[in-house]
Every structure is written in C-alpha cells, then in structure tokens.
C-alpha cells in the first residue's frame, strides 16, 4: 500500500504531522535521526514508547518504528502497541551480533535493510515483508544506496538469466533457500516490495533512486537535517532535548522530495521540486571513504 510513496523519519509528533502534511505515505519513529545518531555515538535504541504513542495518535498514515537487530524485547513492545510496521534496522546499535529476529513469528510486518540479493533473500526467509537498500544512513551521500540498489538488481538479473540447473549453486552462494531463489528467477523481482533508503537528501536523489527501480523512498536525515535551526554552525535544541527544526522549511523540503518521487520520470517536475526547498540547503554530506569500517552502519547485520 506504500508503493510509490515517501516514508519519512520523525522523532516527535510535531515532525510526524509535518511529514503527513507533506504527503508522506508513512512515518518512521526513531529516537534520533541517523545523522544525529552518527554524530552523538553511544547506543541507539528503540524510540521512547511515549513518543511512538504520541506519533500514532497524531497521524492517520501508517506508523513504523525501528528496533535494534535481533532485539525481540523491543519488537514485542511495538507489536503490542499496534504500530503498522517494524524496521529491524542497522541504524540502531545491534542487540544480537549473529541473528536477526524470527519475523515469521510476529503478527506485524517487518522491513529490513539489504546491500545485496543474498541479504535481501535471507531477510525475506526470516519473514520480512519489505526490503530497503541500506545505503549509508545519516551520511547525506547517495553512493551506497545506488550501489545496493544496483547490486540487488544485478543479482536478480543474474538469476533470471541462469539455466535452471545452476540455481542450486546460486542459492548456496546467496545463502538463501532454493525455493526463494527459483521464485525470484521466475518472477524477475523480489517477492516483496523494494524501497530505497540511506543517503537520500535532495529531490534529485529521490528521482535517481526511483529511476533505478526503487518502489518508494525512505528519507531519514535528509529533510529534518536540512531544516535544522543552527547558531554559529551548531544545532539548537529545545527544552526536551530535540534538535530545533524550522517547520516551514521542513514542510517545503518534504513536499519537494514527495513531488520528485511521484514525478521522477518528469525532469521538469524534478526541477520545480528542486527549486522549492524553502530556502534550505541540503545537509552537508560525508565522504564515506574518510570513514573507518566501524563507522559504516551498512556493515551491521549481514
């Protein structure tokens, strides 16, 4: 039901209302946006459940929330609360360094990140109902998302072109079941929806990812980082410790990302969206080659 839409990371009910007004198809509740998680370090956990509840009460679009990889305690809480989707996410600090959640056992759908077809199929085997590229969250750099979308797509093309007798070996190499591999080879697509996430920060980024075959877009830090209120280059915080955001800029920016996603094939519409960022500048991005391996969120939970 979310296809063709934009899912926006939000920290507070106020941000969720901005996302809904902008035309988001869903919001993702999390403790801090990825860029702030990256900057602050420490352990990133599931969002405060009072805030999740506040967000669920504030909007009528679906609410997703992130849990740490393998953290069944967090996942059962969100299931109990009746959120619409759980993101078992590498953006939070993993709780289990070996195993993901047995997602088949839950009554609630899950979305998981993947860098390649093998990861995607393993998550689907565990019960994921939706796959997103991992990209590199909070980086403002689209290169990893492009790499992951292309890698997943190339993996599917390889299976589709393979003669049937080679599929068992492909299944072994992908670490996925033969049945699932044969299904992907036959249908030439994943059995679940494939969204893009991780590093989308401009309308043109969103159009790029839709053109590469993404069925929708997650925007994490891109919107609310661009709309952050700063003083002498430093973020300002409100009384509750949340980064202050200019609501008008956030709304304009979010609308522009939605417009570029919907009309990604129409360059004129992407131009119009790119000119309507409410005076905001896209977030400063990171050169991923300057980061050390332990700083790369996409390496978590293969």
């Amino acid at each position, binding site marked *: 039901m979310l296809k063709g839409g934009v899912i926006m990371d939000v920290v507070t009910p106020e941000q969720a209302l901005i996302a809904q007004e902008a035309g988001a198809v869903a919001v993702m509740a999390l403790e801090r946006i990825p860029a702030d998680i990256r900057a602050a370090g420490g352990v990133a956990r599931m969002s405060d459940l009072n805030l999740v509840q506040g967000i669920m009460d504030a909007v009528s679009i679906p609410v997703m929330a992130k849990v740490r990889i393998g953290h069944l305690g967090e996942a059962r809480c969100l299931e109990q609360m009746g959120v619409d989707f759980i993101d078992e996410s590498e953006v939070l600090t993993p709780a289990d360094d070996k195993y993901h959640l047995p997602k088949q056992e839950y009554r609630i759908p899950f979305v998981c990140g993947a860098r390649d077809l093998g990861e995607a199929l393993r998550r689907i085997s565990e019960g994921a109902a939706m796959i997103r590229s991992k990209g590199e969250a909070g980086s403002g750099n689209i290169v990893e998302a492009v790499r992951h979308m292309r890698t997943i797509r190339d993996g599917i093309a390889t299976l589709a072109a393979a003669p049937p007798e080679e599929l068992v070996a492909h299944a072994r190499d992908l670490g996925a079941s033969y049945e699932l591999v044969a299904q992907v080879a036959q249908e030439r697509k994943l059995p679940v929806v494939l969204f893009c996430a991780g590093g989308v920060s401009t309308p043109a980024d969103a159009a790029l990812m839709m053109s590469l075959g993404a069925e929708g877009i997650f925007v994490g830090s891109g919107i609310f980082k661009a709309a952050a209120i700063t003083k002498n280059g430093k973020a300002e915080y409100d009384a509750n410790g949340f980064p202050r955001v200019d609501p008008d800029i956030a709304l304009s920016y979010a*609308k522009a990302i*939605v417009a570029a996603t919907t009309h990604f094939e129409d360059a004129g519409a992407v131009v119009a969206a790119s000119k309507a960022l409410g005076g905001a500048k896209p977030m400063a991005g990171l050169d991923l080659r300057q980061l050390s391996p332990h700083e790369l969120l996409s390496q978590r939970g293969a």
Partner: protein
Amino acid sequence: MPEAALVASAAPIGVLALQGDVAEHLAALQRIGVAALAVKTEAQLASVCGLILPGGESTTLIRLLHRFALAAPLVARIRAGLPVWGTCMGMIVLAHEVAELEQETLDVLDICVRRNAFGRQMASAEVALDIPVLGPEPFPAIFIRAPWVESLGAGVEVLASHGGHGVLVRQGSILASAFHPELTHDDRLHHYFLGMITPFALD
C-alpha cells in the same frame, strides 16, 4: 472529449498513479487485453475512458490529488459519467464520508466507510468471497487494512458483503471494493469493470 466519444474511441483505461498498487492494476488490465495508462497529470486524466483508483494511503492520496491539481478535474469527469473503480484506499477516496474521522474525500459515492475496519496491518487476510454478479465461484479477496461500508444511500447497490458489511458496492458508473483484486490472478472484477465501460466487451 465527451464521455461517449472517449468510450467509442478505444481510449486506454487509466490507473491513478500518484501512489499505491499501480503496477499490479496495469498488469491486470494488460492481461485482459486492454490498453492501460498510468495517470499522473491532468492531460493523462483527460485521455482515459475509465479510471482505477488503486490501493494506497488515502490521507496521502487526497493531499497529492490537490497538490498536483488533479482533484477538481477528476471529480468533474466522475460527475460527467467517467466509469471509476476504487480498490481499498480508492473506496475511501470516492466515499461521501469516513466514519468517526474528519477526513476529506472526493464525495462522489454515496457511502460512509470505516477505515481500518478489520483492524490495523496485522488483520490482513484472504477470504473466499461470494460475488453473485461474477458467478458461483467465490472470489479470492485480499483484505489489507481494509475499510468496510458502514452505511449507504438509496442509489448504492451492495454486490458483496463480508462480516455483515458491504465490501463491494456500485452506484451507476462508480464501483468500489474494500479488497485488492489486483493482488490475485483472478481478473473477473477487472472484466466486470471493463463491462461498465463497454458493455459489448464482456464475453
């Protein structure tokens, strides 16, 4: 172009493509051998002889219809007789009102719908649904966060019910289903909709 002329001209059937299960409806239309068009602009809307409003997020879609200046021309064409079919979210968007919610709709179909009537996402299910107009064989109806018809006006005919509530209704040239026929390979409802556009096309 007047409605009758568009129908006679073998114009494509459109699928509103701002958001939602667009590809599945386009594929179903292609399976039954009719030209299909993804509709994102007013010019595209003007060129179709029927329109499917797919499953998606209704709050989002209404906003996008206004943002991209499609709401007014769409309502005008529906009032002029354009055959339309709303599935799931599409039923909500076409309805007169939404029970217990202050939600804007296009208000062209005289029903009151209840959103997420069968429960939130976890209450999704496939049901063998009796739809007499499609014949004796039950239809594999997939309900996902589905609405149901809470109440309806005199001009609305209930074509199928589930759990005591209407889930497939028709009012003249407007059809609405609470479930997702595009997610199955049973194309009988797509054929039925085609019949609403060109009665002679039904075999």
